[in-house]
């Protein structure tokens, strides 16, 4: 990987995150105003102090005007970004690079999505005019290829596999029950998850993330300026993003048990951050649990478990809030839903909260007691074999 990274050159000095859910009474303008307001307040600055903005939204507006119009931003650069489910993370990555370049002193990365105005079940994506030959499968169907493929490859029987997927959903809902910003703030019994109506393949409704509205934002400055704004800045250790060649759908050797794009972006991010053993070094990870088998496969692709063993680690509680490496401590997409442009920044907000030891009931003990100071966020957009992937690592300590 010829990726140099910008380790410890920029820092997050303020963040905001709205509650996620069915905001029938709020427009995307309202959500953006709320998240931006919380972020600047958190950094102790005024909106006018921010020099440039990166807005991530997939379908809730086009151009920088989507942000500048409601906030009445005065003639500043506002870049609108779309990169499928990594949209929010991409707003953050590009804002970080602008600050690292020296061109900008203070930047805002903000993401928002208003899904519940559409009136449809599940996510919908409008495509450019086409010849009509592309398969019209839904996202749960595309991701449902993972579970039987994984089970077959590693000799996991159907009942065991159901237990594994159920436990992932159960764990994420359990975490979300402790989070006031979550869409679903309650635990869900394993029997309910396991017996939920089937949507696609072996996936039931509780194997799928929900549909919600939300917004989150971060204020970014150069690392040397960070302590001017806060005693507890969070430093950017690594940013990696890859778009794959979409080889999976063409390649008979692709077996639906891995996301090559995630392996590549994860490896790149670890190299940038100087991480050699992510499971031992990270305090937590926020990963893209769009569907329960996605989280299972990600545990191996991100190096949190050996190939073929993630299912056992899931059952053993390795990724629970009180486990060896908590995954999705805020409740994940499972508890938050997936307002696409906002999700990546919502994940970052949990890293910010945990590493600053402000997570209350959800606070990860290793941050407080064990001296773990690094957190990871991950998004993927697309489908198995054909996706984009983003991985960031952030930490609470500046460069040594």
């Amino acid at each position, binding site marked *: 990987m010829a990726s140099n990274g910008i380790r410890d050159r920029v820092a997050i000095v303020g963040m905001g995150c709205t509650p996620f859910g069915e905001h029938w009474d709020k427009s995307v303008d309202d959500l953006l105003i709320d998240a931006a307001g919380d972020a600047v307040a958190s950094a102790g600055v005024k909106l006018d102090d921010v020099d440039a903005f990166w807005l991530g939204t997939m379908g809730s507006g086009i151009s920088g005007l989507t942000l500048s119009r409601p906030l009445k931003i005065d003639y500043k650069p506002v870049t609108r970004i779309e990169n499928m489910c990594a949209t929010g993370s991409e707003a953050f990555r590009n804002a970080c690079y602008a600050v690292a370049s020296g061109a900008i002193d203070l930047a805002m990365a903000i993401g928002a999505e208003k899904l519940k105005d559409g009136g449809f079940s599940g996510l919908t994506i409008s495509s450019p*005019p086409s010849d*009509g030959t592309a398969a*019209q*499968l839904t996202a749960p169907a595309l991701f*449902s290829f993972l579970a039987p493929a994984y089970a077959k490859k590693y000799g996991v029987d159907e009942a065991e596999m159901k237990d594994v997927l159920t436990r992932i959903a159960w764990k994420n809902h359990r975490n979300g029950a402790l989070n006031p910003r979550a869409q679903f703030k309650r635990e869900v019994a394993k029997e309910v998850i396991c017996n939920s109506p089937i949507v696609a393949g072996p996936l039931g409704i509780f194997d799928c993330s929900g549909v919600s509205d939300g917004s989150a934002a971060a204020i970014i400055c150069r690392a040397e300026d960070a302590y001017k704004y806060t005693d507890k800045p969070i430093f950017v250790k690594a940013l990696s993003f890859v778009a794959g060649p979409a*080889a999976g759908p063409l390649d*008979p050797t692709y077996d639906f048990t891995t996301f090559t794009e995630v392996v590549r972006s994860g490896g790149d991010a670890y190299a940038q951050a100087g991480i050699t053993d992510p499971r031992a070094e990270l305090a937590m990870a926020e990963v893209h649990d769009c569907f329960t088998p996605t989280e299972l496969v990600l545990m191996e692709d991100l190096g949190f478990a050996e190939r073929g063993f993630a299912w056992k680690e899931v059952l053993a509680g390795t990724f629970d809030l009180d486990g060896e490496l908590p995954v999705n401590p805020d409740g994940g997409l499972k508890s938050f839903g997936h307002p696409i442009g906002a999700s990546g920044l919502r994940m970052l907000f949990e890293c910010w909260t945990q590493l600053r030891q402000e997570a209350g009931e959800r606070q990860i003990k290793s941050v407080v007691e064990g001296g773990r100071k690094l957190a990871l966020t991950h998004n993927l957009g697309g489908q198995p074999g054909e996706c984009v992937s983003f991985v960031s690592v952030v930490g609470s300590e500046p460069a040594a």
Partner: protein
Amino acid sequence: MAAGIVAWGAYIPYFRLDRAAIGATLGNAAGKGTRAVASYDEDTTSMAVEAGRAALAMAGGADDIGSLSFTTSAPSYLDKTNATAIHAALGLRSCVPAYDLGGSVRSAFAAMARGQQLSAAGGRPIVTLSDIRTGLPGGADERDGGDAAAAFVFAATDAVAEVVAVAHQTEEFLDRWRVPGAPASGQWEERFGEHAYAPLGEAAVTDALKAAGLTATELDHVIVTGPHARASRRVAGAIGARPEAYAPDLGAVIGNTGAAHLGVAVVEVVERAEPGQTILVLSLADGADAVILRTTAALPAAQAAVAADRRLAGQIAGGRTDLAYATFLTWREMLHREPPRRPDPVPPAAPPTRRRDGWKYGFNASRCDVCGTRHLPPARVCVNCRAQDQMTPERLADVPATVATFTIDRLAFSLSPPVVAAVLDFDGGGRFSCEMTDLDPSEVKIGLRVQMTFRKLYTADGIHNYFWKAKPLRSADEGSK
């Protein structure tokens, strides 16, 4: 070395409606037996493609076909030619003309006669006949109709039958009719049609026999088809042929398949006839058209060239008979069901469709000239070796494939949920994901052997979106492996 039919193909759709299911729902007497039902993703165009593929496979390919015609009483488009889609899906050369011939059952005979005439003049046409017969719920057309297609390749030599005599009778009278766009046909009192048809049919047969120098008892096979079942039975009886000469009318299993029925009946006879036999074919549709054929020595070799899974007897005996009447009504748009809470399907756009018609209609993949990797859909840059613009198109429509993995999508829009989707690995290389059809979700499994079939994915804004799906290979010699 006669000119005439050298290859054929019949297509009977997979589904049958048990007539008892109509009676069970509507509380009337709906008769016995079943009728063939085009699936929700089929229309007369797609069924003509399937019959045409069978005929071309038997004829040794599409390369030397000189013209295409398509006849149906239920065209999917008016004003726009339907035969051009069939032409594209069969992979015919661009210099080959493609025409729709008529919108009535009688046009079937005309299409066959034209095929014969073109071949006599040295041509090699393919003639396709296809129909979907609808009727209002509880009516005779719904009950007794059927859906099917047939196709014939004609050539200047080596025909399996030569034409001995033809005769016609034409008269204007009102027996059945349909205004364009109407869901069903109207019909005058049944006994009036019988009264009008009987003398026309008898005169045509008498003239044909006279021209051929034959008597009725010398006929080896007699086919009488037409939309008026009672008139057909009466005329058939009046011909006076030997009882064993009469071909079965197929109504008990597949129903009367309208403009396709003449073709299906001819296939039924030629697949079992012997060389040197006479066949009378009488079409009673807005008049009477009769032809007497004599089979040739080329027949046995042609019969042997019919692929096992394409034989009509097998297709008739196969099929699935548990189709619910409510599902049938939904497929024929007689019952408008609540759609899922998903966006409406988007119609295909004309320019991208035209740019990719080799893929969309012809199912032409591309094979990398450098490393041999197959790409579905065709690509300019090789996924394996990254060579650019070194690709050769390769038609995979007739190449079998194996299911690598699959899923059942209960959320996606379909007229017949749930959608079954599979990842396919083609024999000889190449992977592609697509919908499956003509199977129960419980049938799909890893390793299932499948073949491609041309279908109508959906219709949006009045535009039919045609593409290929996979269906199980059900022939005797191709199990799952």
